């Protein structure tokens, strides 16, 4: 039977706090989640946020149009820094896109049932972040209309195949596979909940659209059995995939011979950083969203605290990686490598380096305190710092190494143009536009999964376990 849950239970270390609070039953979960999307009019704040985000999106696409018309000269990219903000933004967004699939796949395989309340939300965030990420290398190729040359397609105007031994091509495969599998995973998980929306729909258009996208789901035991098998398999496939994506992104750098890039620590360091930034983004968005949409009983403090613990763990890994990079630069005895790191910390980009260090190494350490881990505004502040820090990490890696390589005669100082800045802002606009539409029209919490983990949901005393 559902036990009475109080805040006292949450704080009792001897027992595991329940996944959801507030005496929930099946119907109340359906109600809580569905009514968010069923309100005829969302609150005014949604409109304000959507107006800002969609204007930024519009600006983003106008700037992309201008870029296509005018060429990449509108950016600050120039000799010797040809990989500038577009690539920094790409790696930043791809990194953010790691939390969703990590929560969905890896925590699922580890039977971390607390993930059920937040996985849908995090997966949606993944998809939107990967969309933002994919735009940047796409427009960075210069002649956007030839971007299909990235894929191994036979074409008469190129008359050759891509080089399969290049990490940049691996990246094309990694990111597109990741986007596709994340989308499948997200959509598949949503089918039963879309069916709930369909069955509750009152207007004809909602009935039709939710009906179409729920594919005629009935909740049949036979369907559920295959569905669960497929979900488990997808999780098992997505788990190595999520680790591979940022590994391959790091190969873009590590396989080249530039000092500061050519290091073997990059793959694990990038993956830890990606999880770090992804979770920070989930917390940043989740805290206001759960307050705003009345999901506090489904997304409890336990969820947030668990995520903050992961941020603390991955943040410490990232900090360790920074230290280890320095150690290896010294230990290798390689003058170029040593210079690259001294230049990072004390060169012309020292301001960016120390921003990165203070945001990524110092800020998450506050999560050692339980008070910080469980106070919403404090965690949001720290997570925003983490996101800033992770953007600067990619900036430091990309720009400092490129701007000062082997030949002092070719050194330069990179500065972005206004369009660079506006495009980064625009990508945030796109991300939030998609996110707000998701909150408005789709099930934000995986209802069927949460229901399955309610106490008493599963039959007891049978021999099927």
């Amino acid at each position: 039977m559902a036990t009475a849950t109080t805040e006292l239970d949450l704080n009792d270390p001897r027992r595991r706090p329940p996944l959801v609070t507030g005496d929930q039953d099946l119907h109340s979960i359906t109600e809580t989640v569905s009514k968010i999307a069923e309100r005829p009019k969302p609150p005014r704040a949604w409109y304000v946020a959507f107006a800002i985000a969609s204007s930024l999106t519009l600006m983003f696409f106008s700037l992309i149009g201008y870029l296509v018309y005018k060429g990449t000269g509108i950016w600050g990219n120039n000799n010797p820094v040809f990989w500038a903000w577009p690539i920094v933004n790409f790696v930043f967004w791809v990194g953010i896109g790691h939390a969703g699939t990590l929560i969905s796949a890896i925590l699922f395989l580890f039977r971390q049932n607390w993930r059920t309340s937040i996985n849908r939300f995090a997966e949606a965030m993944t998809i939107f972040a990967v969309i933002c990420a994919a735009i940047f290398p796409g427009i960075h190729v210069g002649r956007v209309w030839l971007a299909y040359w990235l894929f191994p397609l036979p074409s008469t105007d190129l008359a050759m195949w891509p080089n399969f031994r290049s990490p940049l091509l691996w990246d094309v495969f990694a990111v597109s596979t990741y986007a596709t599998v994340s989308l499948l995973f997200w959509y598949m998980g949503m089918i039963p909940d879309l069916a709930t929306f369909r069955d509750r729909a009152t207007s004809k258009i909602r009935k039709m659209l939710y009906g179409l996208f729920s594919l005629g789901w009935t909740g049949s035991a036979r369907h559920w059995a295959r569905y669960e098998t497929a979900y488990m398999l997808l999780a098992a496939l997505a788990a190595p995939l999520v680790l591979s994506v940022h590994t391959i992104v790091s190969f873009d750098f590590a396989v080249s011979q530039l000092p500061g890039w050519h290091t073997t620590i990059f793959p694990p360091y990038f993956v830890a950083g990606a999880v770090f930034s992804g979770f920070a983004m989930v917390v940043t968005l989740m805290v206001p969203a759960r307050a705003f949409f009345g999901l506090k009983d489904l997304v409890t403090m336990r969820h947030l605290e668990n995520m903050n613990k992961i941020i603390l763990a991955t943040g410490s890994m990232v900090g360790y990686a920074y230290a280890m990079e320095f150690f290896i630069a010294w230990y290798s005895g390689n003058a170029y490598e040593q210079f690259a790191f001294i230049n990072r910390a004390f060169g012309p980009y020292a301001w960016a380096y120390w921003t990165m260090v203070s945001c990524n190494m110092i800020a998450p350490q506050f999560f050692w305190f339980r008070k910080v881990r469980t106070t919403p505004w404090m965690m949001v502040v720290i997570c925003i710092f983490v996101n800033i820090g992770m953007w600067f990490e990619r900036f430091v890696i990309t720009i400092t190494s490129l701007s000062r390589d082997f030949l002092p005669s070719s050194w330069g100082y990179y500065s972005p143009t206004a369009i660079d800045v506006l495009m980064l802002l625009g990508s945030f606009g796109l991300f939030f536009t998609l996110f707000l539409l998701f909150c408005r029209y789709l099930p934000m919490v995986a209802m069927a999964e949460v229901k399955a983990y309610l106490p008493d949901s599963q039959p007891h005393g049978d021999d099927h376990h």
Partner: protein
Amino acid sequence: MATVVEPLPKQQPKTQPVAGWLVQFADAQQLLDAAGKTNAAGLKDLDAFSPYPIHGLDLAVGMPRTKLPWLVLCGGLSGLTIAILLQWWTNAVDYPFLISGKPLFSLPANIPVAFELTILLSAFAAFFGMLIFNGLPKLRNPLFKQPVFRRVTDDAFFLYIPRQSGCDTPQQLTKLLEATEAHGVHEVLEDEPAGPLPRPLKYALIILATIATIPPLMILQARNERSEQPRVHFVPNMDYQPQAKPQNASPFFADGRAARPQVEGTVAWGDLEEDDAYYRGIRPASEQPVPARPASFAGGAANEKASDESAAGSAASDEVAPAVPPQKQPEPAANPMEPPEPDWVTQFPVPVTTELMERGRQRYNIYCAVCHGLSGDGDGLVARRAIELQQSTWVPPTSLHSPPVREQPVGKLFNTVTHGIRKMPGYASQITTEDRWAIVMYVRALQRSRNAKVDDVPENLVPQLRDLP
């Protein structure tokens, strides 16, 4: 718990036969128990419906283990195979990529793409396999007609007993459910056969299908017909550039011309052509070069000396020597009105060799023989045809064996080949400087062949000469 079958609440009269019964239960435990009992009673094709997956329910309704994992394995293996074959064929066979001498096909570099494609196709197999095995999408389902079924995605639990399962009448059903905790039984009617498409939808589909055929038809037409038009460039890339072109006006410069004249005193790369004898066929001058040369070039000491120098410069020419025609100083112009002749070189500024002579013959036969004839008599095919057609404006080519031509110094012949004379155009743009000298050399040989003495023939060939008819 005995229950009564509740018929479908009627909006329309019942026209369809009963397909089966939905039996409602309060929770997962009751549903699971009932499913197990019903299945044990030997009923086939049972199904159960719940808002979330219930462990063991699939076994309780008698469902065999799904084959989906095998399908996913096949998907993964095909992804792996495709990736390896794709990388091997594109990079090692069809378009070999030579990069730093690395092997064309090496497995380590192919692992990332192979890994990604394995995952991708496995994921497709898992997702689409699940849908196909489940028979989804299936938007039309008799169950959806039963209003109570809407709660299945919220909080309701149902056992579905189809009529074909071996339980044909409500009486049998009631008996069957006595042992369970059923809360209610609802009839499900068979689906009405699908009606015809609504008319507007039908027309819309027809119009859409018609429009969809236009692009393939246009491609088909384009592939089967010739066009004089240049190829369509959807994206002009760098075909049109905002650059200044010759003969265009430009407001940027004071004189309004886009093309800029050379800055005074500059020489374009390769255009210096300092060697007068070689490039212009005149003796290197201490004073003014061609053509404003004073009339008296009867051969001052300076000129003679320059000539000697140029001859000495080409050492071979003295040894092979004989190409020089009988020395004759150019005469002062007979007509005082004519401009004075420049000081033409009389020695070849290039070494006279058999190879160059052969080259001259070849070039002569290509460029000159069409008018001047293969032997230089002025009877080339073009000349003969022009005379045949009685072309009034035709100026017959001079015979190269006529005395005035024979007496010309090689420099003048070279000048004629370079710049042309009368109707003959200059050939500087078509024939390189060296080749023009080779042609002059061959012309000299042709001229010599008409005026040779027996002494000119090598001793051992003289008897053969006498045997000629």
